């Protein structure tokens, strides 16, 4: 319930639009009622052999209601869709604002594209909250009131019976079916999740399944799961069918009830036959308003589940908070790490332990080690994606937690091995690093990064995740960004990992040139041109195993020398 209220609260700015759409929706059903009632009136009056003139108002009514219904429906659909899209815009902004301070630490578990996609789908599914959840009950309520007035002005008893039937159709039946279907829907969702896993196992692990002779067993398991799911769906369909039937019974009961209540009144003359006929037709038409209510309850459940998932994400505490009185960033400077320690939440092993090193202003230090040694963790800590679990990390003698994280990041250019490119133009992707840069500046940066070919393609779409560009081009865009950012600190996190040997040499030249005079921390498992570093920190399983200059480490013939040999001995 709390989730639902929070969700409904998000739509508050559009309350007036929603009310307008609901009113028009009511008017649409109202003209349906009007059409049938005036038709009945017209026919019964006609049957009394009255002159045509006495029928004129009825004829006009039939025509007006007949024509207006279509147009009203059209207007209602336009307004409600428009509102829906506005709500969706707001939901997206709301979620983005709420989730942005949490990235990336609290979003780490959603890193896989599938999970991220589900979040987006959840938000998308909430767009229905107005059209499917809020609007139908509001409209139904108005129709109920209308019928109460219409029928009640002739007979309170009849109106009361109609009300009961409407409550049954609009409230009791949907609620009961929802309760009956609730367990089923949850079970189906559980089976669907299982099917997802089975399908991934099947498609990706088909080779293993074949070689191990377990393919048939796996297919059988998939089939059993599907059958279980279909069985549940059958049950759900039966419940749905009962609901339709019961609503229909309620409608017919209302008709019989009116007859039962009002016949004596017809006999004693207090109600005319014209009236009772019109009322019966009106009641029949009014039940149109109650049909969507079952769907609306089912949507409430789905929306609440989607809402819960979203709130669960955004209700977490951000990892990094902006200090109340941030220190001004010193510009150029040094990096010092002392006894730095970090353990990822939920992990039993620390990612790094007791790591101590320093980079002098304008100096260059490399952190090397096999993958999984904790190298990238140090970069994440430096740009404050995470907070250290222990020890200290400082820039020019000041703890990095004292700075405003945004200002800190603006002053550290990061080139990482997985360059994220947005599905936008190349220009947009470059402007990220320097929002005010002119095209001239952008082209210069591209050229410096060895991407002369892209200079005249600034407007080209980079493709989804930059797929229109090759791995090497993407990597060099990252380097162009680094040049554009013009920051006093540079972190190179496997910056040339995706390049072929020839390109790598060229790009390394550019990087070396750009890094001139800046404080550089390079993270790599590929040992190339290692002699250019003032100091090399060798990490293995989170700990420093060796430290020193290239020649020293090679002559020591330890872990580093082993890595070196390994890399320069690969035949093919």
């Amino acid at each position, binding site marked *: 319930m709390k989730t639902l209220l929070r969700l409904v609260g998000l739509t508050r700015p559009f309350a007036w639009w929603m009310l307008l759409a609901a009113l028009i929706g009511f008017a649409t059903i109202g003209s349906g009622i009007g059409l049938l009632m005036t038709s009945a009136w017209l026919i019964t009056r006609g049957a009394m*052999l009255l002159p*045509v003139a006495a029928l004129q108002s009825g004829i006009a009514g039939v025509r007006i209601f007949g024509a207006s219904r279509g147009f009203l429906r059209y207007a209602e659909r336009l307004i409600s869709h428009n509102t829906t899209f506005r709500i969706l815009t707001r939901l997206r902004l709301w979620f983005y604002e709420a989730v942005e301070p949490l990235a990336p630490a609290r979003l780490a578990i959603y890193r896989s594209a599938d999970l991220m996609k589900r979040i987006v789908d959840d938000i998308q599914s909430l767009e229905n909250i107005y059209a499917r959840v809020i609007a139908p009950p509001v409209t139904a309520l108005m129709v109920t009131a209308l019928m109460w007035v219409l029928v009640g002005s002739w007979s309170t008893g009849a109106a009361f019976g109609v009300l009961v039937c409407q409550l049954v159709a609009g409230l009791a039946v949907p609620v009961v079916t929802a309760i009956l279907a609730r367990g089923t829907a949850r079970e189906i969702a559980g089976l669907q999740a299982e099917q*997802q896993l089975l399908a*991934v196992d099947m498609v990706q692990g088909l080779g293993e399944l074949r070689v191990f002779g377990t393919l048939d067993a796996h297919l059988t398991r998939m089939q059993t799961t*599907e059958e279980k799911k279909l069985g549940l769906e059958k049950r759900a369909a039966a419940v749905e069918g009962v609901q339709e039937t019961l609503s229909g019974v309620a409608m017919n009961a209302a008709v019989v009830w009116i007859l039962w209540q009002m016949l004596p009144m017809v006999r004693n003359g207090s109600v005319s036959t014209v009236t009772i006929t019109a009322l019966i037709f009106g009641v029949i038409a009014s039940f149109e308003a109650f049909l969507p209510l079952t769907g609306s309850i089912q949507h409430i459940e789905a929306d609440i589940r989607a809402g819960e998932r979203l709130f669960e994400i955004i209700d977490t505490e951000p990892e990094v908070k902006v200090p109340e009185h941030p220190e001004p960033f010193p510009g150029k400077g040094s990096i010092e790490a002392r006894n730095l320690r970090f353990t990822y939440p939920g992990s039993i092993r620390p990612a790094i332990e007791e790591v101590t090193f320093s980079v002098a202003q304008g100096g260059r230090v490399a952190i090397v080690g*096999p993958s999984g040694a904790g190298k990238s963790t140090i970069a994440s800590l430096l740009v404050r994606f995470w907070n250290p679990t222990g020890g200290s990390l400082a820039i020019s003698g000041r703890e990095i937690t004292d700075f405003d994280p945004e200002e800190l990041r603006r002053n550290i250019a*990061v080139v990482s091995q997985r360059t994220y490119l947005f599905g936008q133009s190349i220009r947009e992707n470059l402007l990220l690093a320097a929002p005010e840069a002119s095209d001239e500046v952008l082209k210069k940066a591209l050229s410096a990064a060895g991407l002369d070919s892209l200079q005249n393609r600034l407007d080209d779409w980079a493709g989804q995740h930059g797929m229109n560009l090759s791995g090497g081009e993407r990597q060099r865009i990252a380097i162009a960004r680094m040049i554009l950012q013009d920051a006093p600190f540079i972190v190179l996190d496997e910056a040339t990992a995706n390049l072929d040997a020839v390109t790598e040499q060229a790009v390394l030249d550019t990087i070396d040139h750009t890094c001139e005079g800046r404080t550089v921390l390079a993270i790599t498992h590929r040992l190339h041109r290692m002699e250019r570093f003032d100091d090399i920190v060798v990490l293995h399983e989170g700990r420093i195993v060796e430290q020193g200059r290239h020649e020293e480490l090679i002559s020591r013939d330890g872990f580093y020398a082993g890595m070196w040999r390994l890399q320069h001995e690969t035949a093919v």
Partner: protein
Amino acid sequence: MNIDRNLIRLLKEEKRPFTLSGLAGSLGALLLVGQAWSLSRVVEQVFRTAAGWEMLLPSVSLFALFSILRLLLNQAGHQAAKNGTLGIRKMLSKRLAVSVADLGPAFARSEQSGRLVTTMLKGVEAVDPYFSQYIPQLLMALVTPVVILAAVFPSDWISGTILLLSAPLIPAFMIVIGRKASVATEKQWITMSRMSGFFLDMLQGLDTLKLFAQEKSRRDGIGEASERFRRSTMSVLKIAFLSSLTLELVGTIGTAGAAVSIGLRLASGTMPFRPAIFILLLIPDFYLTLRQLGTKFHAGMEGVTASKEMHGIFDRAAEAPGNDGSRELKAEEASSGHFFIDDLCYTFPGSATPALDGVSCTLRAGSVTALTGPSGAGKSTLLNLLLRFLEPQAGSVTLGSVAIGDYRPESWYRQIAWVPQHPFLFNASIRENLLMARPDAGDAEIEQALHQAGLLDMVRSLPGGLGTMIGEQGSRLSGGEAQRLSLARAFLKDAPILLLDEPTSHTDPVLEAQLRASMAELMKGRTVVMIAHRLESIRNADTILVLEKGRISQKGSHDELIAADGFYRHALHSSTEEAA
């Protein structure tokens, strides 16, 4: 008119339920007429004679009876259609899984594997509304209007004519506008998915935005983009909704027209009262059935799209060559037989150049053969052919004197251990992931295999031990750990033939030494074919085959090859130079 031939063919497999559904629909239409008939009698009695409740009771009861019967029939019809639909879905999902299995790992792990999973999960579900909603509604729309017309005409031919003339307008408009609307809907659908793609992009790239301290400025971008999409979508919808407006207008104007004409004729005394009420009660249902067909039409659309995708897979599977010999392969045969590869060719569908172009060689029993060569030379294709993940297009692979395709697949695979470069870990515990290799193995044997693969200490350090869940839903193992788990599987399987794709690059000298030792242990006494990347692995092989552009360019031992001028010596030179 949304009749997909493939889907209709499926309908034939579940004839009974859909026939039942059609029958229920037709009976329902008759009852609808009965309902209107009895209610009109009630109204007439009230109107004419101001009858008392006692006199009305028979007609009211009849009305109630008809109503309830009709509702029950409706429900039965829906349920029957749903049952038929579920039957079709069951059949489709099975066929889909089997087709994917038949197409084999080379197909399944291709680039579209994500799409394949989506089709398997959503495709079959997407077909549901087509069968459970659209088809029953189509049957209804064929029967109900005819029954209503048949009931209306004898009572009042003028109203009947109005209905008859206006009825074709609905399908006609539906086709004319529907075509435009479906283009518009598609456009809207694309716009919407592009927008959600844009938003997904922003969320996925949030780290990058933060790195450049641009996360605040992009917020407005999302708002603007979202608004832009709203405006363009609305302009599309304005047209799309016109179709339902037109349909609605035909319905209401038809109703109004009939009502006015009836009223006027009643007033002039040329028409009796009861048929008038009777017809008035029937008219809304006449148009409703037709109009609902339009709604369900859209519900069924997605199923048609999904069906195309699924039948594409079925067709490919039907074309795929069979993989089912019936011979049994005995362990002795497998361990003592040489492989004879003769003029083997394979070209991937859609590729212009052959991946293997006439490869002939002998792989000796109990010896290690290393495959080497530049990437794209056909090494993996050769391994896939030995694994029977692909079927030779020309030439043959025989073990001893029997073509490997003649063995029953299960029997064949029982004698083969496979260590791929990127082994797949199933969403299951470590124990289950290993047990696949030998289902009857006990924990002691599993631990022995883990020890041989150098993974035992790591597994023991996990809080769940052997029961720890791995794969997508469990804790992820690193690439090196996954490879060692795959080695443990091979140890456990203990098969005479070992097909191995050596891990390309490792940066951890400690891990590297461990892996090298366990691989050497594993290869002892088996017939081994390995795609080798390490100089040392290649040097230790009994025979080295150098593949270039789908052909064997060099063949021999390390010493022989180093003496000859060719790829092998060049490659060796360049790598040793770099090291120096």
